[in-house]
């Protein structure tokens, strides 16, 4: 009833190419973004902003990057944690070695370095596919884990191996309080999401999707597989690298290589698969699922255990929540292998007729 596009005519090319062709979508997205910018800082507690909103947004940005590679170009990567680490350490090194650079520039340069390394590790994708490629990307993960742990230059020879982010000065604005951090991250995430959305709608994105759907056919209609695959690796690693730099600078503040271990790669891969491969909205849903659910389980399990007379100690709670988490992941994969984004599109179909179905 409310979600019906009848009567909305596209009378210009720009209307035809709009990101959200339906007015209701446009209004809803604008309302959500406006609420995130204007309402959230006033209603949310510091804890909520710091440990839920900021990490979820950054993870969503990294998931957008990974989704470009896996969901749009069909190249499975298990090395996204490493590319986050490259972004973080590159941005850190730019920030401390060239102090004149504005913070935003060092973060973006971190992404650029990550993109270059991504292209290098994308070269095997020209010859191999599927799980062989996935395992090959693990090489990046393990190599960079080791490099940042063992090579002192990258951590500026700090004895503990843990490094501190520089002060967050964005063109004279010092990002300090939780609200400021949140706004900073939200702004960047919005800009980059818009960028990603437009990339995947444009001709580059269409090339990626053609390669994903059938690479040989794509080659025959004139798409260069090398260019398409390597550009997907570059763009994806750039996004993931920027997200890594934000994760380190804004969310963690001080970090060590363990923050970007293989678990992070799996977390991101889960986020895009639970959220929905080949969907930008799915990245946000999936990242929220992957970040919030474990926190929720950790909080909710002890009282639930008490209900049935089972007092859990801390270790048991963490094991038990891992177990429930695994079961829920399997459950979601079985119920909707195409992810939460697919669920949302089903809901939209239903909404068109609601409340008067045939």
């Amino acid at each position, binding site marked *: 009833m409310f979600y019906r596009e009848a009567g909305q005519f596209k009378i210009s090319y720009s209307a035809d190419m709009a990101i959200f062709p339906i007015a209701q979508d446009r209004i809803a997205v604008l309302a959500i973004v406006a609420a995130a910018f204007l309402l959230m800082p006033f209603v949310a507690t510091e804890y909520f902003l710091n440990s839920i909103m900021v990490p979820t947004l950054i993870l969503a940005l990294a998931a957008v990057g990974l989704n470009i590679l896996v969901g749009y170009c069909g190249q499975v990567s298990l090395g996204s944690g490493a590319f986050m680490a490259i972004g973080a350490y590159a941005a850190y090194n730019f920030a401390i070695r060239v102090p004149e650079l504005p913070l935003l520039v060092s973060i973006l340069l971190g992404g650029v370095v990550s993109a270059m390394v991504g292209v290098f590790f994308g070269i095997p994708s020209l010859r191999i596919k599927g799980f062989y490629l996935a395992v090959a990307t693990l090489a990046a993960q393990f190599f960079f884990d080791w490099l940042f742990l063992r090579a002192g230059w990258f951590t500026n020879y700090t004895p503990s191996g843990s490094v501190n982010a520089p002060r967050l000065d964005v063109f004279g604005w010092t990002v300090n309080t939780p609200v400021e951090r949140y706004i900073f991250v939200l702004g960047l995430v919005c800009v980059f999401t818009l960028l990603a959305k437009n990339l995947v709608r444009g001709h580059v994105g269409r090339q990626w999707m053609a390669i994903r759907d059938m690479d040989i056919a794509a080659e025959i209609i004139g798409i260069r597989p090398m260019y398409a695959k390597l550009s997907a690796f570059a763009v994806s690693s750039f996004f993931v690298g920027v997200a890594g730099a934000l994760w380190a600078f804004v969310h963690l503040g001080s970090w060590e290589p363990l923050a970007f271990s293989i678990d992070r790669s799996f977390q991101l891969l889960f986020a895009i698969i639970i959220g929905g491969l080949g969907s930008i909205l799915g990245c946000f849903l999936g990242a929220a699922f992957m970040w919030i659910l474990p926190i929720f389980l950790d909080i909710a399990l002890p009282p639930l255990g008490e209900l049935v007379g089972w007092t859990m100690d801390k270790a048991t709670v963490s*094991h038990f929540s891992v177990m429930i988490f695994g079961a829920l992941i399997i459950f979601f994969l079985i119920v909707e292998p195409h992810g939460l984004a697919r669920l949302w599109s089903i809901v939209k179909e239903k909404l068109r007729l609601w409340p008067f179905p045939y």
Partner: protein
Amino acid sequence: MGFFLEVLIGGLLTGVLYSLVALGFVLIFKASGVFNFAQGAMVLMAGLALVQLIQPTYIGLWHFVGIGALVAAVAGLLVLRVLRGGTFAVVKGDWRVHLPMLVAVGAGLVGGLLALAGGAKGWPLWLAIPAAIAVMVAVAWVVERWVLRPLVNQEGIILFMATLGITFFIDGFSQTIFGSNVYPLNVGLSKDPVFLLESVFDGGILVNQLDISGAIIAGVLVAGLAVFFQKTRIGRALRAVADDHAAAQSVGIPLNWIWFIVWSVAGIVALVAAIVWGSKLGIQFSLTFLALKALPVLILGGFTSVPGAIVGGLLIGAGEKLAEVYFPALTKYVLGTAMPGGIEYWFAYVLALVFLLFRPQGLFGERIIERV
């Protein structure tokens, strides 16, 4: 020269253990096309179950009762299967539809009562190992019934992520049930080092007896698997499924049953790996990372080749140890600065990556990768 051989042999023996884990991957990938990341978690679970059944330090009486019931139920179902000789058509409404359930519940009750009578004292090895196998068989059944069957016909990546979910579940479950400390495992394998070839080299070559017995166990296991695959009816069915799912199904091989068998076999392989690794390092959470060590082995050997898993494991094991010992010295000689140590961590992967560029299907893998 003696030192070089010592490093080489040590590496080869470690490689045997990598092969053990890789073998579980290959079995499942061949039969069902599932890239089973949970193999490492299965090693952990098998090890924890075994060590806690032999020397209970974490689990109590009720765990024993539960495992006793489980073991008896699995054994009862197995006996039923053997007596009945495969499935037969059962008319709907016939009481025999419920026969397996009845047998499982009955045997489970008996087993539970027996375990209750025995108390939480820890079981002897001859009982604990079959019990651990029964636990792994139960895991295989649950995985087949509740994960693989609903996800049939999904893309490989979805199945892979599902096995990651299984990994989380098994990790959490086994540590909730069996505890999460480091437990030393003693099944009677000697740990003393021995010197070999003392007449050839000055001082001989130092080798750990445990590694040798591990290699022997692995050899026996591989030989047993080879016989199982080549000479038995089920083995033939497994090979048929590995060749072509659809054709195998059309000649009447029940796919679900085959998947259950192959996950059970992978569970048993995991138990063997747990016994050997556990005797060496103790049963602990880090055993799950064995899965990560086995991946480059698979790339080197090919995802679908059992001999490939063995040879790949040996190559990775030896290459890793040699690189760890000689690379820093080499870089110091060539570049002037020594490389930081600990390259064991990634060497196998980079080796596999370089290898992939030249031979994408692995040493013995089938040529299924399309060139683009």
